[in-house]
């Protein structure tokens, strides 16, 4: 009886210890050791790429060799943030590294072809890529698109960017976001030219990954002139392994990434390579939290970042459009790509572009005719102050290239009203109408003067006959106004050229897109020419019989 109590106490204590041990979550370090130990036991018949790497003592890692600060090759040696991470991984696994050069186009296919085991090459984690490879969580870096411009230029957010032109690269995932904030995009094929275009002042602003600009900001001359204005469109970067035959390798790398964040290994490597560390400092705090610092932390939604979802909603007829493209390719051998019909945002831009172009053309024609009458009347007026004022305005407008007149109209409009598509269209109509109307008005006034010299009627009948006499010039400037409407895209008017430039900035098919714009405008101008023929006949019919 006397022994029963201590024995019960002892048993209770042992049970408590066992319960506590069971309750204590396995650490990532312990889990990693277990995964590596198990993998090493399968050297006789390795099936997973981790087993193959551990047993063969070599891990093939795909890295970039010209991405300054992140992955470059200097005198045959891979240097930068990513090669240094690769070395830290290899050290922890106890293997040698075989670096393989990859680029944006080859990095995923090479995994699938089993030419590399791991890709560690500035790869953003997107939902589309989730279907092509297995991303390692947590992510080892996060980039964002940063808008860079001169220090003298005050830009703090999207409101300051409306109607400004930003130089970007075609296909950049953040272009769609910029377009939605009413910016104008100037497209370039290669990111490498953007810093040069900023330096030679071709571009006032440029937008690209902060990781790309990081290298250029290490140059004091560049850093003295330019600064990042603000960032957006954050993209987490992930290492990737093949979707099949890499389960254990992926698990080991998940755990290793957790450990590297928690212990500040990623942060230390980033500091050594002089890249931005804000994200990594934040991640270190997250992975030191007890709820994340467990063997299952990489699957905990409170600890890991989601993949970036860039998928654009397709149009209801996207499949039919794709089928049509295929038909052209197979039957006629013509590569037709119609991105403006395949996704909902692109289709919306396209429809608005067509509608705005037609509004702009009708508006420009009406304004030109109205200003032609106004200038014709003023320039032919007997009231000298009105005549001189009209002459001065006509001379000024004739001396200003149409693009400059559009820019001035936009400057006035934006000083008076906040930016909107309507304001940009209105300013464009006014500028096109003034420019062409003043020239046509000059012809009308010359006709007024000639009729005046010939004697005969005065007042309104004379003016109507002058319109008839100057019909050829009026019609020529009406056609010129219609032809000039695409230039309105320069000040952010959302007409078809501007709209399709926006669409082609985040999709493929530039050739088809610009062919379509050329055909559209040529047909519209030819219709205007045809309609103007009727107007000319009608105006000439107003002339007094000789």
């Amino acid at each position, binding site marked *: 009886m006397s022994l029963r109590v201590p024995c019960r106490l002892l048993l209770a204590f042992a049970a408590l210890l066992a319960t506590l041990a069971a309750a204590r979550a396995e650490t990532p370090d312990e889990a990693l050791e277990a995964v590596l130990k198990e993998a090493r036991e399968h050297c006789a018949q390795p099936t997973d790429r981790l087993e193959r790497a551990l047993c063969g003592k070599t891990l093939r890692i795909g890295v970039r060799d010209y991405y300054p600060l992140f992955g470059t090759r200097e005198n045959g040696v891979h240097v930068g943030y990513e090669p240094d991470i690769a070395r830290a991984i290899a050290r922890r696994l106890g293997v040698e590294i075989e670096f393989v050069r990859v680029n944006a186009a080859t990095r995923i296919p090479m995994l699938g072809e089993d030419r590399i085991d791991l890709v560690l090459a500035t790869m953003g984690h997107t939902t589309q890529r989730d279907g092509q490879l297995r991303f390692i969580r947590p992510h080892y870096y996060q980039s964002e698109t940063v808008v860079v411009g001169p220090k003298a230029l005050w830009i703090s957010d999207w409101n300051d960017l409306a109607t400004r032109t930003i130089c970007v690269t075609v296909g950049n995932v953040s272009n769609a976001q910029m377009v939605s904030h009413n910016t104008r995009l100037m497209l370039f094929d290669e990111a490498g030219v953007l810093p040069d275009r900023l330096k030679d002042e071709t571009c006032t602003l440029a937008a690209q990954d902060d990781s790309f600009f990081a290298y250029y900001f290490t140059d004091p001359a560049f850093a003295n002139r330019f600064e990042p204005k603000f960032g957006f469109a954050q993209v987490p970067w992930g290492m990737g392994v093949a979707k099949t035959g890499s389960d254990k390798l992926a698990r080991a790398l998940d755990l290793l990434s957790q450990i590297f964040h928690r212990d500040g290994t990623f942060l230390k490597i980033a500091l050594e390579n002089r890249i931005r560390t804000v994200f990594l400092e934040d991640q270190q705090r997250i992975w030191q939290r007890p709820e994340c610092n467990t063997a299952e932390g990489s699957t905990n939604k409170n600890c890991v970042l989601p993949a970036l979802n860039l998928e654009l909603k397709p149009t209801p007829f996207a499949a039919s459009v794709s089928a049509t493209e295929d038909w052209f390719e197979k039957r006629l051998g013509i590569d037709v790509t119609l991105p403006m019909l395949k996704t909902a945002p692109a289709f919306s831009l396209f429809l608005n572009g067509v509608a705005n172009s037609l509004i702009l053309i009708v508006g420009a024609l009406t304004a030109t005719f109205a200003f032609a009458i106004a200038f014709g009347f003023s320039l032919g007026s007997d009231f000298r102050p009105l005549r001189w004022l009209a002459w001065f305005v006509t001379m000024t407008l*004739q001396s200003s290239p149409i693009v400059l007149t559009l820019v001035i109209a936009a400057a006035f409009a934006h000083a008076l009203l906040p930016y909107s598509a309507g304001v940009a269209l209105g300013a464009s109509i006014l500028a096109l109408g003034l420019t062409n109307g003043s020239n046509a008005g000059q012809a009308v006034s010359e006709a007024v003067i000639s009729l005046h010299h010939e004697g005969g009627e005065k007042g309104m009948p004379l003016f109507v006959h002058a319109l008839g006499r100057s019909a050829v010039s009026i019609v020529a400037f009406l056609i010129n106004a219609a032809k000039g409407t695409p230039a309105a895209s320069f000040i952010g008017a959302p007409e078809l050229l501007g709209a399709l430039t926006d669409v082609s900035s985040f999709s493929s098919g530039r050739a088809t897109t610009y062919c379509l714009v050329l055909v559209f405008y040529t047909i519209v101008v030819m219709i205007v020419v045809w309609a103007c023929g009727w107007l000319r006949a009608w105006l000439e019919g107003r002339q007094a019989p000789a």
Partner: protein
Amino acid sequence: MKLTDIWGDYVPSLLAGMVTNFEISIIALLLGLVVGIPFAALRFYGGRAGAAFAAIVVSLMRAAPTFVVMFFLLNVVRDVSLFGIKLTMSGVMTVAVSLVPYSAAYTADSGVEALRQWHRGSPLGALLFLPNITRAFFVIVMASGAAAAIGVPEGISVMVREAALLPTLGDRLVVFAIGIVLFGVPLQIGLALMRWLQRELGRRLLAA
């Protein structure tokens, strides 16, 4: 905006940019003459079929908006092959070529009229071709400002860049006004020269 900034920095940059505008215009005009004169000849000497064909091509060239043609060339016809040699068009060349449809159509129209006058036995009437081409040149100079949209560092892009750095509308208007004066002076001189030429030729035509 300080006066020293205007005279020391802005005006020289603008003048340098305007050189590019003239460079673009000269190339566009020369190419326009090369393309336009054969079409003028075809319309005049080519018989009914030749004239119809030339008329269709010229009306298409006349209808093509320069701004759209420029973006078409920039995005679709960036590389040109000449005798098997691949040539990439520079920004200046892209803008110049985009102005060729206008230039060629104008040349073809004026050329037909000149040929008509020549065959009527009026060489002076045919010479009116010259002031017409001068007028086209100045129209092209003004239209070459479209180059700013594709990043060619010409006059308009200098003005837009300078204005973007200024905080007030008043300062920007000073920048634009200087631009209008600098573009306007050669234009008005050119147009005056053209009017004088036309008058002189007209007078001689009447005398003849």
